[in-house]
C-alpha cells in the first residue's frame, strides 16, 4: 500500500458515548469517513447527531471512545486537530452587532495564516458580497447559514462538518445550499452532512450512517442500502383484489400489499414473470407492472421506527 493509502481517514470515531444523567445521547458510535466522500449522518431529531458532531470537533468530551480528524484527537491536540477542518454545529452563530465582513475578519484572525485573503472569495461564493457591511443581526436565517459556509471556507478546509445546513431554509435556499455542498464536494472536500431530510441525503451523499436513539443502526453505501431490501414491484390490474389473492398464493412473492394505486410486492425478476402468467390465467388483466426500488424515506422509517431491515 502506498504512503497515501496509509494516511488517516478524515473522520475516525470509535465507541463514542455521551451520557447526560440517565439519558445516553450517543451510544457506542463508530464512524469512518473516507476522503472525497459526502457522508450522510441521518437520523430523526434527538437521535444524537449534533452531540456526535460536537464530540468530533472537541466541543464536548465523550464519556467513552475516541474521535480523530485526520488522525488527530481534538481533546489531546486542541485546535491543532482542527487544521483543515471546518463547519458548524446546529445553526451557525455570529456576533450580531458586527457586520458579516467584520465577523469573517474576526474568524480569519482566529484562523491565522492567509485566511484573511479568502474573505472576498468566501463572501462571493455564498453570494453575500452585496450585504457584507450589514450587521448580522439583520440577516435572515438563510443568510446566516450561508455566512456559516463562508466562515468555514476561510479555513480552506479538506473536511467540512455541516449540521443540518438546510434546516429552516425556504425551498430556494435549500436548493442553493445543496448546490453549494455539491460544488464543494466536487472540489475534493470531504463532507459530513448531518440531516433529518432523506431527500437531501439521497441527493447528496455517497455513504451514510443512520442513527436512532444515539445508536448507529446502519452504516454503508447508499446504493447498498437501497439494494438490501430486494426488488420491489408495483402492479395495477383490472381486479386488484383478485390479483392480491393470486399474489399471495404465488411462491416467491413476498410482502404483497394493496394500496390506493394498486399492489406492491417484493420478488425477483423470474417470480415477477411467473406471477404475470398466473394473473392472466386467473383472468386478471395487467395494466402495469413496474419495478419500484424502496425509497430511502421508506427504509429510514423502517429502520428508525420499526425493527430494522428484513434479513
Amino acid at each position: 500500500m502506498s504512503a497515501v493509502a496509509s494516511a488517516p481517514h478524515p473522520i475516525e470515531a470509535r465507541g463514542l458515548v455521551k451520557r447526560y444523567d440517565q439519558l445516553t445521547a450517543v451510544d457506542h458510535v463508530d464512524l469512518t469517513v473516507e476522503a472525497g466522500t459526502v457522508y450522510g449522518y441521518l437520523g430523526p431529531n434527538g437521535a444524537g447527531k449534533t452531540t456526535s458532531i460536537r464530540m468530533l470537533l472537541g466541543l464536548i468530551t465523550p464519556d467513552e471512545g475516541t474521535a480523530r480528524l485526520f488522525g488527530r484527537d481534538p481533546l489531546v491536540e486542541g485546535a491543532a486537530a482542527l487544521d483543515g477542518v471546518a463547519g458548524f454545529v446546529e445553526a451557525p452563530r455570529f456576533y450580531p452587532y458586527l457586520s458579516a465582513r467584520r465577523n469573517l475578519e474576526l474568524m480569519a484572525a482566529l484562523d491565522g495564516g492567509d485566511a484573511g485573503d479568502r474573505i472576498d472569495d468566501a463572501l462571493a461564493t455564498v453570494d453575500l458580497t452585496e450585504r457584507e457591511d450589514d450587521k448580522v443581526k439583520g440577516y435572515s436565517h438563510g443568510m446566516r447559514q450561508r455566512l456559516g459556509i463562508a466562515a468555514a471556507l476561510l479555513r480552506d478546509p479538506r473536511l467540512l462538518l455541516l449540521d443540518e445546513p438546510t434546516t429552516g431554509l425556504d425551498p430556494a435556499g435549500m436548493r442553493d445550499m445543496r448546490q453549494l455542498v455539491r460544488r464543494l464536494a466536487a472540489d475534493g472536500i470531504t463532507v459530513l452532512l448531518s440531516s433529518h431530510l432523506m431527500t437531501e441525503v439521497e441527493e447528496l451523499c455517497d455513504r451514510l450512517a443512520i442513527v436512532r436513539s444515539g445508536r448507529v443502526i446502519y452504516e454503508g453505501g447508499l446504493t447498498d442500502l437501497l439494494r438490501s431490501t430486494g426488488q420491489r414491484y408495483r402492479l395495477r390490474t383490472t381486479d386488484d383484489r383478485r390479483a392480491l389473492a393470486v399474489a399471495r398464493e404465488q411462491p416467491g412473492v413476498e410482502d404483497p400489499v394493496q394500496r390506493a394505486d394498486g399492489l406492491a410486492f417484493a420478488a425477483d425478476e423470474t417470480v415477477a414473470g411467473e406471477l404475470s402468467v398466473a394473473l392472466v390465467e386467473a383472468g386478471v388483466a395487467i395494466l402495469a407492472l413496474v419495478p419500484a426500488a424502496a425509497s430511502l424515506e421508506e427504509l429510514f422509517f423502517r429502520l428508525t421506527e420499526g425493527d430494522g431491515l428484513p434479513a
Partner: protein
Amino acid sequence: MSTTAAPTPTPPAERVAITAAPAPRRHARPPIRAIYRWELRKLWAQKRTYLGLGSAIIIPVIFVVSLMVQHGGPDGVPFGRYVRQTGLAIPPVLLLFSSIWLLPLIVSLVAGDIVANEDGNGTLKTILTRSVDRQQIWLAKMLAAFTYALLALVLFAGVGLLLGGLRYGLHPLTSLSGTRIGVGRALLLMVASLGAYAMPLFALASIALLLSTVTRNSAAAVVGALMASLIMQLLGVISGLDFLKPYLLSTQFDAWQGLLRTPADWAPIVRSAWVSACYALPALAIGLTTFLRRDVTGG
C-alpha cells in the same frame, strides 16, 4: 458499531488508496495579541461597554457640577476639604466614593458578561472551532476585561482631574499627613494611586470572570460579582468582625491612600497586593480550568 442491520461493505484496498489522503498541514496558532485585539474590538462594538464607560465619565461631571452649585461638603472624607482648592483633590475623593459600588459595578458589567455572553449567543462554539486553543481565548478575554477595568478607572479619575483642574486650577495638594505636595509630584502619586486601586479592581474582575465562566449566565455573573463586593463592604463595617477587615477586598480599595502620606506608607499597598492576589489567582485558576474542561453545548 452498535447494531448494523445490513452488511457494511469493506472497501477494497484499491479504494482505500484512492480515498485516503494525507493529513492537512499544520497551521501556526495566531498570537494571543491578535485574539486580545479582537476581544477589544468586540467590546468596542457593544452597548454595555459604553454604558459602563459613560458612567465613568458622567459621575465625575455630576460631582464637579454639584461642587459648583453647592457650598459645603463633602465632609468627613480624606481630601474632602480641599476639593475647591485644587483639582488634584477631586480624583481621590471620587475614588473613595466609587469603591462602594460604582467601579465594581462597571467592571462586573463587562467581566461578568465576557464569557457568558458568548455562551448565550452561541458564539463560543464558533470561535472554539477555529485555530485557537481554549486557553488563548480565555486569557485574551481576561486581558480584555482587565483593560476595560483600567480604562474605566483612568477615565473616571482623568475626567475628575480635568474638570477639577479647569474649575479650581491645579495647585499643590495637601497630603493626608498635612504636608504640601507639588503639582508634578502629586500627579505622579495620582498615577501610582490608580495603580494601587487597580489591584483590588482586577481581583474583582477575576471573580466576575470566574462567575461568567462557571454560571454561563451574564446576569448571574454581573449580580454575583457585585454582591460579593457589597457583602465584603458590609463585613467591613460590622465591628465584631474587625479581624476580617484587613483580608477583605473592599479594604484594599483604600490602600492607595498610603501613597498620599508623608512619608509614603507602603504597608497597605503591600497588603493590598497579596490580598488581591489571594482573591484573583484562585478565581482565575478555577475559571481557566473550568473553561478548558467544560462541554460547549450552547447555541
